[in-house]
């Protein structure tokens, strides 16, 4: 094949233009910004918008918006399980699929699931499982598909909340709703429900990290816990407590959304 020498060929691997920003504007420090966006206090969660039942094809679905984080989730099943080789057939399986839409993050992602998304899928499944009465669905599987449309931080935490709403909407028997809350620790500052800039901000502090907690509010059980970074034990404990509080604050909104969906479904046919 003749090679066109006149044309300037682009690099083989494309890169986001954000990479070429001057270095000082690139790094936004968590500690340098005194206030959070939208006059939010450090312990405040972003206002939440949640609705159930928007995907008509699915058994249950939910949409959730917290700030700019937008998540959609649909639940299919229970249906016959695909994998019959599993030894434990007495209880159903919860198959979670977590995906970040390619355009959801500042840097474009691929359509195929990467290692990070697979890790988030397992984390999601582990958080949701204790909330669902899977023993009621022997030999069956329930599919939970989560797509993050826009990622502005705390995606996993909100995905947990959104998925549990969709499960409730699908009529899957549950012990409790599962609520998720994330936190970013930076030295002594505790930022609840961080946005993407806060979540990803570089920090060389000795005591910094990210925590995600999933909570069953009525049973007061923690169904999911994930933390990374470097934290002292006491600040980790405090962070978990703060996250539990944050979860409780989500509860009324989620409850209302589920109630609304139930009322809509159970509405009597209009009389003529």
């Amino acid at each position: 094949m003749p090679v066109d020498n006149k044309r300037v060929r682009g690099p083989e691997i494309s890169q986001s233009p954000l990479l070429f920003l001057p270095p000082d504007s690139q790094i936004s420090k968590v500690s340098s910004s005194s206030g959070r966006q939208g006059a939010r206090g450090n312990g405040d969660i972003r206002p939440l918008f949640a609705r159930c039942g928007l995907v008509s094809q699915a058994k249950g679905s939910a949409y959730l918006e917290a700030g700019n984080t937008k998540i959609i989730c649909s639940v299919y099943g229970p249906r016959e399980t695909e994998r019959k080789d599993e030894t434990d057939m007495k209880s159903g399986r919860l198959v979670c699929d977590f995906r970040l839409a390619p355009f959801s993050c500042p840097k474009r992602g691929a359509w195929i699931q990467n290692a990070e998304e697979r890790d988030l899928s397992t984390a999601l499944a582990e958080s949701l499982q204790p909330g669902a009465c899977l023993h009621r669905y022997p030999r069956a599987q329930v599919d939970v598909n989560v797509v993050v449309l826009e990622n502005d931080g705390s995606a996993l935490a909100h995905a947990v909340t959104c998925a549990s709403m969709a499960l409730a909407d699908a009529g899957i028997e549950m012990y409790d709703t599962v609520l998720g809350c994330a936190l970013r620790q930076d030295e002594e500052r505790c930022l609840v429900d961080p946005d993407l800039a806060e979540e990803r901000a570089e920090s060389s502090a000795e005591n910094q990290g990210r925590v995600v907690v999933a909570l069953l509010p009525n049973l007061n059980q923690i169904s999911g816990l994930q933390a990374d970074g470097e934290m002292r034990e006491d600040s980790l404990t405090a962070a978990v407590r703060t996250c539990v509080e944050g979860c409780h604050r989500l509860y009324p909104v989620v409850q209302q959304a589920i109630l609304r969906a139930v009322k809509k479904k159970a509405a009597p046919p209009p009389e003529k």
Partner: protein
Amino acid sequence: MATVQVGEAEKVYIMHGVRDDLRVDGRGCEDYRHMEIETDVVSNTDGSAKVSLGQTDILVGIKAEIGKPKPMVPDEGYLEFFVDCSANATPEFEGRGGEELGVELSNNLYKVFNNKHSLDLRSLCICPGEHCWVLYVDVLLLQCDGNLFDAMSIAIKAALFNTRIPKVHISEDEEGGKEIELSDDPYDCMRLNVENVPCIVTLCKIGHRHVVDATLLEKACSVASLLISVTHKGTVTCVRKLGGGSLDPDSIFEMTETGKRVGKMVHAPLMELLQKEESLGRERTKVGFLA
């Protein structure tokens, strides 16, 4: 995951034992099984270690290669983890059977090392933006008898301690082209500072108590466990709840406290042992795989 079938009566027996701080093999709730560590077991690697913890056997090999630094951090090298669940360990891992577990294990390793102080990645930089050392950490599970995480993290720490990266020299010619020269003296090498490398402690909740270093039998009796990675200073670098059950907030706090205490205690003897092994030098009798 490699699992075993446990009868109801056996479960009750194990749970009652744990309640009285006496486990099936005679250990207390916070005791590890007998552990053996040997470094420098595979000569083709830059660093390697084999750890056996009870019946769990893990081999870690580290290879250093020259690669291109990640665009976001041009002045740092990086680590790549890969965990292979060999079908040697259990027939369940045959084909793609071990893939899921392998991905889970390696993802957790990335999380454990996802901070600035665990390992000085800047020391892996050769030429900012152009060349850096990439450490491929390959973990091979030879035998599984529970508590893969702890054994794996100890093996990785030992292998990193054992790693010797050859020194490189960058020379520039008249046209500004850079050339990398590798030192041909095998003793002219760089060592890694592994002081801050964390160790993982997995705590299994059994009944109302939690146990350290659970065997497969004990694991089958628990619904949820907590993974905590702790540095020698007691800093927690990663926490994760594993398994399909949920945990009470108070028990999580208790478990993190135990995890930190146990984890801190692992580091000093481990470093002492590694240094002692190294001081033996060439006179050391190699044990190998037939221990």
